[in-house]
């Protein structure tokens, strides 16, 4: 019992992934600034943002469901932390997890997106409702290719649905990114992660210019800080998942720690560069992109995996 609470609150859970996620979010803003020939924020900027939001006043909208509105960010944080724990324990090689944990991870990764929708609809703001409906359509678009890429991974690793065995298979037979189906699946899953994180070009759920931050428009103060922390943690958990599925997992022993940092940073760099070189697309363009092109990529990846490429 004690070790589970330690896992959840301290080491791969809340504290560790919160701090690393904050650093990754700083790296994202810094890379963005360097791409635009700016100087960028200081390294403690995520901490400043978080503490400032905790100390600010929280406004509850008059016409809205108060309990749902306050609990939505809390459940988003729980979902992000527990998915980070389930991803990081096998990927870091601390515990082996259980058979079928990759299916649990698929479900847990959806909890933050669903709580965004629930919180936005509970606030009673029409712009938040527009954002929530866009987020719903986005989930419908990116879940299908995400699942198909995972099926391709499962086929490649010899029909195992256990994340630790997938990582161990790559340790024995080489990382999946080295094969043709791995490269195609990697492209598809990077796009899905871009949409899962709600980053440009798939940030239409919180488009600042058109619907004024959309799903988080009514959130202020400490509950907005919870959403920020959720984003930081997802920014670490999803690249760690990609590193586990395609780059052969992370390790914290000796010189391997450098490789682990490089693997995560490479994924973060790709996400940031895609976000900096693309404009926001409309929701139906995003759906078309995922349903036609990314599904095609994922199916090709499955076929190649079945052929053993």
């Amino acid at each position, binding site marked *: 019992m004690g070790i589970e609470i330690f896992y959840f609150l301290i080491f791969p859970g809340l504290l560790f992934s919160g701090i690393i996620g904050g650093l990754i979010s700083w790296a994202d*803003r810094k890379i963005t600034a360097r791409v635009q020939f700016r100087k*960028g924020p200081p390294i403690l900027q995520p901490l400043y943002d978080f503490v*400032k939001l905790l*100390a*600010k006043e929280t406004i509850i909208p008059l016409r809205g469901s108060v309990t749902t509105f306050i609990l939505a960010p809390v459940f988003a944080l729980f979902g992000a932390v527990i998915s980070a724990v389930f991803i990081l324990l096998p990927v870091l090689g601390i515990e082996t997890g259980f058979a079928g944990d990759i299916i649990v991870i698929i479900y847990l990764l959806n909890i933050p997106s669903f709580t965004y929708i629930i919180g936005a609809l509970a606030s009673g703001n029409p712009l938040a409702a527009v954002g929530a409906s866009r987020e719903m359509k986005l989930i419908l678009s990116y879940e299908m290719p995400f699942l198909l890429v995972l099926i391709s991974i499962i086929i490649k690793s010899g029909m195992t649905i256990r994340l630790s065995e997938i990582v161990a298979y790559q340790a024995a037979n080489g990382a999946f990114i080295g094969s043709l189906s791995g490269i195609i699946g990697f492209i598809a899953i990077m796009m899905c992660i871009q949409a899962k994180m709600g980053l440009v070009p798939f940030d239409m759920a919180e488009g600042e210019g058109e619907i004024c931050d959309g799903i988080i428009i009514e959130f202020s103060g400490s509950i907005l800080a919870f959403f920020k922390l959720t984003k930081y943690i997802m920014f670490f958990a999803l690249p760690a998942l990609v590193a586990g599925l395609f780059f052969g997992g992370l390790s914290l022993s000796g010189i391997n720690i450098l490789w682990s940092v490089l693997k995560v940073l490479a994924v973060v760099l790709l996400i940031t560069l895609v976000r900096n070189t693309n404009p926001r697309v409309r929701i139906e363009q995003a759906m078309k992109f995922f349903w036609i092109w990314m599904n095609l990529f994922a199916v090709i990846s499955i076929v190649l995996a079945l052929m053993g490429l």
Partner: protein
Amino acid sequence: MGIKDLSFKKSLWVFHLSAGSCNNCDIEILDLLTPRYDVERFGMKLVGSIRHADVLLVTGIITKKTKARVLEVYEQAPKPIIVIAIGACPCTGGIFASGYNFAGPLDKVIPVDAYIPGCPPKPEAMLAGVMKLLAPPPPEQANANK
């Protein structure tokens, strides 16, 4: 200075409210985000919703129509909030001070923390105004306040 004050000063999120300006001050505010001035190195960024804001920038004259809206936006903001009047219009009324629809300078409507005059003020002037507002008061002034 505790971590609370420090992080408030280091992470100012700005909401920009145009109460009917000629767009000149607004363009100058957007200049602050460009690579030449880059206010993100001080942790400032523009946010889309007043609920996330720490700083309310008001540009343009306060007319009889927009007075109620400015007041409403101010009341919707989570406190503490810093109000900054950008340009001659919200500071004094400028050339519109004798207009038939002029409803008074901004400090007659909501409490104002800093005035940055100019038509439009230069981006350097805005940065200098914010920095002066956030800097700790000089010792003689601190004694005079006691």
